[in-house]
């Protein structure tokens, strides 16, 4: 009896020590789940989800404070990926947060721009170049299409233009299968 108790206690101590050491030595810095969620989000930084950027939204999802269907730029595919990652059910995009739109970039109308720098301050990815009383211009390659620059513009000179297909982005379409000729 005593031997059995001693053996069990011994095993418990050894295993406990092993677990304790493992917890110290293999400690993961930060929350990998947040990183994984953040990697799926489109990084538009538009705030349509109700959080100030993609990472805060990722943190909110990880903490269970936000649902997975609040990201319009990520669209249905993004929600599917999130559902896969988190083992949840797919649910359609919450329209309260916006609708899925084709990827666009902001364009500043050069005639109207007064050089107020308000859009520069609003841009989350520093994609607008300009100075006070100088015309501003958007670096198209860096623009995420978040639309955050539109509201602050006092002269409404910013418009969203859907991205046009070029030879670099052109894709072969999904093959259309002709099943049978109908006479």
């Amino acid at each position: 009896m005593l031997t059995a108790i001693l053996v069990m206690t011994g095993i418990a101590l050894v295993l406990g020590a092993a677990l304790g050491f493992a917890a110290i030595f293999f400690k993961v810095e930060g929350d990998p789940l947040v990183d994984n969620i953040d990697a799926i989000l489109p990084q538009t930084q538009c705030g349509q989800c109700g959080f100030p950027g993609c990472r805060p939204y990722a943190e909110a999802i990880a903490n269970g404070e936000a649902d997975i269907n609040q990201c319009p730029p990520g669209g249905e595919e993004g929600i599917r990926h999130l559902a896969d990652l988190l083992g949840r059910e797919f649910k359609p995009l919450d329209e309260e947060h916006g609708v899925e739109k084709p990827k666009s970039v902001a364009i500043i109308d050069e005639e109207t721009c007064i050089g107020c720098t308000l859009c520069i301050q609003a841009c989350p990815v520093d994609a607008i170049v300009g100075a006070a009383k100088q015309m501003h211009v958007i670096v198209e390659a860096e623009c995420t299409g978040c639309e955050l620059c539109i509201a602050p513009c006092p002269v409404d000179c910013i418009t969203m233009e859907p991205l046009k297909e070029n030879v670099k982005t052109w894709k072969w379409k999904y093959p259309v299968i002709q099943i049978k000729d109908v006479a």
Partner: protein
Amino acid sequence: MIAGLFRFKGGIKPETHKNASAGAPIQIAPLPKQLIVPLRQSPRATAECIVVPGQKVLKGERIGLPDSPLSTAVHAPTSGTVVEITPHAMAHPSGLQTRCVVIEPDGDERWVERPTLDYQSTSPKEALAWLRDHGIVGLGGATFPSHIKAGVDGGIETLILNGAECEPWITCDDRLMRERADGIVAGALILKHLTGAREIVFGVEDNKPQAIEALRTAIHGLSGDITVIPVPSLYPAGGEKQLIRVLTGVEIPHGKLGGDFGVQCFNVGTAYAVNRAINHGEPLVSRVMTVTGNVEKPGNFEVLIGTPVEALLALGQPKADTGRILMGGPMMGFELPRLDVPATKATNCLIATSPALFPPPPPEMNCIRCGACAAVCPAELQPFELYWFSRARNFGKAQEYHLFDCIECGCCSYVCPSQIRLVDYYRFAKGEIWAREREKSAADAARERFEFRNERQAREKREKAEKLAAKAAATKAKLAATSADAPAPAAADAPASPDDAKRALIAAALERAKAQKAAAEPKNTDALTPAQAAQVAEADERRAAKAATDTAADAPESN
């Protein structure tokens, strides 16, 4: 020297249809009304335009400068006037537009000065730059810049000249080898010198006996290890990896290139263009193209780059029932969405189709898992697996099955008993995977920029706060110093209350301002001549007198 030949796995033997145009000697195509020279030569690379509308250009004059490592120069194909620089539809399955230089020929074909290069006495670097500046790209179809391919640093043992021309209908390389074998061999020798290869091997499909004969005559008497080897006619023997396999037995594994195994492969047309560029100083402004299919007079033409396809097609006189036009071969080529597109350096063939020659594809049926596609796949893939994954948009799995090793040769579609156009699915999957990768890298860049911006804003805030704190501390210290000196009562009890300190600060500031004002009094009264000084004194006196009288006059009223 190569003892025997090897075999690549799979392959098919489609009807070649080469007799239609193989007997037609290369003719110089007449000058079209307009030449539309695209500045973009491949999806990878474009060139920077250096001409303006209205400018006169000579044949071979550079009109576009390479603007990236994978780019080559672009030249005017003939002498004439630049009419405009405008977006124009390009020879691409999408029919999308790209920037083109439109040149109206003057009909003189006046060449620009054509210095030649003694490649044996110059450094390889100079010779490679020469190739880039003469617009030399691979003419086998991929238009990969030759200066990159020839510029691998050593380690090349075997130089393979690809004259297999395995696709049905196409005969441009065949005619080039028959008629201009000397030029091809001269180009091959240059490439051998540049790559440092030990031996040259010409690989020509055995269905071109005259071409083999012509090349053998051309290499006759040449010293060094140079051979012409007929390879069995089996599509796609002209694929780079397949030809290397057949000639050397080397099997290029996934993710590697011929150069990694001491083998480099060039098209015979490229070798000919290299010879023209180095030994004759001519940039690549024309190439041989086959016009065949449903036409009255199939033939081979030396065509200026930028010639509109419709003008080129007219040379073959298409028959009345001609339908779609294919650019490239029937296996790997694509249907042209419109006919005003210009011929490019990649254009080796135009095929006019007709319902009789190219019957519309029968309806697609279900995959019956027969495995015929796997048996013919020259890349040793499992096309049926790739098909299922691509169709189901399971791109990760498709990549695991090495989708990107697929050369899109079309063998699988050719043999499929269910008539599934497998290659279409692979192209779709490849495009989607590339698009995803682009999106991913764009998202990563956006994340980085967003994080940097947040960090910058935090830093600016911190710096501003620090600066303010430092300034406040400095003023306080200064104030403490002055209060210690001055016996003024206000300053004496300054430390007692912060209000007093503030007041003292204000007083000090006022004092400073006063002092500054005094110092900054009228500067134009310095360094005056005695006469001016006298004038000023007089004016001051007058002013004083006036002020005195004014006060005297005001006095009674104010009382």
